[in-house]
């Protein structure tokens, strides 16, 4: 078998093998059992005392969300002003300028919500200070926010009847001190010894062998790239993200970055099974998610490895597959795999340029972000899947003519309404946004913005439409990858995607936490012969059917105008 394929298969197998013990460890951390990282106890105690946190204090779902939203709001204000004045602050060896207000607005939100859409290039748009104090910092805390929200839901699922979702501050802090930081240190050290820079030295200037003078951007990259993946953030140090040879120097680092971004979302599933004592429930979800991921992966890899039909017509050979926008050291197989992993999970880092992917691959990447629950981002992936479960419970209940129940609690109108609203929100934001952008391109091409609408698109026809659709899909999924040809650093894209980012982050967190909190308060109904078994394979397939139906109804027309048309035209 060729080494490119074995590389991909082994990467996935290693990920799952690591996720099992990591999941067990995560479950222990939140159940406050003894773990190998108990040496962090004094650090946590210091943090609690310094901040005036009582880690034992129980929170109901409203208090839990208030704490979560307050600290997130604070980070937004903080990040916005840091980016706005970065040119006047220290640690700016390359003399980079401040961000404009609309760009700072977009960037602050984007990192706050774990999306990392970047309308700037890392080499020139931020300073070492903002790379560390804004970007890296938010990459840690936004991932921890997602995981903490999910653990709150676990606490609600665990008990028969409870008002207590746990203490947000404690769960959040332990996510950083016990999970994210220790694992990041290990990964970052491996990166450092594989050629990723970690010093604070500024841009270097070299004279090449042919006598050209070029600048080489550097910086303390390794630590940021570790949390960028482990926290499913995705925002790159350099403009080219993990395609950049200093951000992803070789095949080993590529495997490591792939494993790092996939491992927590899968581990959280296994942790859930142990923590709420419903292992079968977790395994079935893992199975369904894996099947879903493979349905997107296989067509992508086939089309990338077969190469570009248009290039084939020009008469050159494509021994490994399509190479535009790809790096030789990764090859089309690993690039195709990465492009699906990064879109089903809300990472959004790239090791190849998605704008240059084959049309079928572009379609699969878009679908991965639209569904956004095949593993999904740190914490939030399972929360998204939870919404699909509630709808599947509701529909199954209607089919058998019983009041729907989920884990011993009656699912009633209020919960179903919340779930339906969260689902409809995505379709509204993605299609509404893309329609608005297409309207400006078609009818107001000369608007006096930093980039005129007529110059937004880097490609004509269907592919140009895909660029706009992709941007809003990525913003809504809090993904952060892009069809990067799009001219997006101007007030329209900065502001419109900024609002999409906020809505699409916090409503899908508030929704599931509220549903879980509301359900947990209700009287516990013991299981009977008539109870719908939510841990059965049948129910898993029912959930899959709901996912397919909702997403097909929501997005097929938009996808038909973009990648599907391009693929069909390319075939002729």
């Amino acid at each position, binding site marked *: 078998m060729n080494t490119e394929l074995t590389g991909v298969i082994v990467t996935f197998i290693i990920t799952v093998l690591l996720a099992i013990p990591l999941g067990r460890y995560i479950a222990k951390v939140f159940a406050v059992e003894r773990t190998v990282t108990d040496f962090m106890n004094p650090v946590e105690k210091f943090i609690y005392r310094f901040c005036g946190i009582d880690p034992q204090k129980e929170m109901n779902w409203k208090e839990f969300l208030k704490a979560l939203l307050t600290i997130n709001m604070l980070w937004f204000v903080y990040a916005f002003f840091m980016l706005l004045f970065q040119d006047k602050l220290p640690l700016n060896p390359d003399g980079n300028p401040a961000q404009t207000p609309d760009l700072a607005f977009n960037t602050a939100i984007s990192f706050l919500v774990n999306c990392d859409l970047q309308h700037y290039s890392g080499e020139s748009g931020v300073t070492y200070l903002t790379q560390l104090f804004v970007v890296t910092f938010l990459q840690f805390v936004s991932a921890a926010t997602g995981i903490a929200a999910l653990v709150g839901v676990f606490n609600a699922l665990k008990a028969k009847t409870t008002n207590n979702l746990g203490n947000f501050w404690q769960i959040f802090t332990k996510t950083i001190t016990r999970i994210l930081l220790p694992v990041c240190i290990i990964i970052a050290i491996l990166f450092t010894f594989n050629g990723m820079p970690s010093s604070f030295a500024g841009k270097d200037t070299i004279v090449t062998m042919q006598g050209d003078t070029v600048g080489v951007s550097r910086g303390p990259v390794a630590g940021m790239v570790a949390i960028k993946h482990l926290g499913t953030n995705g925002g790159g140090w350099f403009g080219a993200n993990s*395609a950049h040879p*200093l951000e992803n120097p070789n095949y080993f680092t590529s495997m490591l970055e792939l494993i790092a971004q996939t491992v927590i979302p899968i581990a959280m599933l296994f942790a859930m099974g142990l923590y709420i004592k419903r292992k079968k429930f977790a395994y079935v979800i893992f199975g369904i998610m894996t099947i879903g991921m493979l349905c997107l992966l296989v067509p992508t890899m086939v089309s990338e490895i077969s190469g570009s039909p248009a290039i084939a017509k020009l008469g050159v050979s494509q021994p490994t597959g399509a190479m535009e926008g790809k790096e030789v050291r990764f090859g089309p197989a690993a690039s195709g795999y990465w492009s699906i992993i990064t879109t089903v999970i809300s990472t959004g880092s790239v090791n190849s340029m998605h704008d240059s992917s084959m049309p079928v691959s572009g379609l699969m990447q878009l679908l991965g972000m639209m569904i956004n629950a095949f593993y999904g981002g740190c914490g939030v992936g399972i929360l998204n899947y939870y919404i699909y479960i509630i709808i599947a419970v509701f529909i199954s209940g209607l089919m058998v003519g019983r009041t729907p129940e989920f884990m011993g609690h009656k699912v009633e109108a209020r919960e179903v309404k919340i779930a339906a609203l969260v689902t409809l929100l995505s379709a509204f934001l993605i299609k509404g946004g893309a329609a608005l952008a297409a309207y400006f391109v078609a009818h107001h091409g000369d608007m006096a913005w930093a980039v005129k609408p007529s110059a937004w698109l880097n490609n004509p026809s269907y592919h140009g439409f895909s660029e706009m659709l992709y941007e809003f899909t990525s913003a809504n999924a809090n993904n952060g990858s892009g069809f990067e040809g799009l001219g997006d650093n101007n007030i329209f894209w900065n502001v419109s995607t900024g609002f999409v980012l906020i809505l699409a982050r916090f409503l899908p967190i508030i929704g599931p936490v509220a549903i879980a909190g509301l359900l947990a308060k209700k009287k516990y109904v013991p299981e009977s012969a008539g109870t719908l078994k939510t841990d059965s394979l049948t129910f898993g397939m029912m959930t899959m059917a709901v996912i397919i139906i909702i997403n097909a109804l929501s997005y097929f027309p938009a996808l038909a105008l973009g990648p599907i048309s391009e693929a069909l035209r390319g075939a002729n």
Partner: protein
Amino acid sequence: MKKYLLTSIKLTAVLLVLLAVLYPLFLSAVGKLARGKGNGETVSVNGKVVGYANIGQKFTEDKYFWSRPSAVDYNAAGSAGSNKGPTNPDYLKTVQDRIDTFLVHNPGVKKEDIPAELVTASGSGLDPDLSPAGAKIQVKRIAAARHISEDKLNALVDEQTVKPLLGMFGPAKVNVLKLNATLDEMQ
């Protein structure tokens, strides 16, 4: 609300020290032990630094192994891909031009033997590598320009080829800068 805000401010302050100060400082200290001391590994020719091992450079002269086309002309202070879609007609014309240029400079090479990587731009615009085939197809031109035997050049490519990771994972590759640096040192 006020209670939450005060806690939020303090928690943010303490986490900034941990995550934005101590964490990167620790890693930069570890980096001092790595090759290149955490600044990036460099390549020298006859004692003079000519570039970074992992950052590709523009090579267009006949006496050198050419690197891949780059959307940013190998500007390592502004990495990017072309972001051209696979069916874009302008893009396909650019590729056609690259094929024609390659054929002019490499007489005797058949079009169907040119691997696509030599006429397509990389994702970063800084791809440091070629596949072994992408290097070997240029051997004839370099042999003529430098008056070295083709066998010797083919052997050099083989010697510089980095095998897949553990011989099992990922593609084989050749670093173009190191290859060309060795060429210059040979003569």
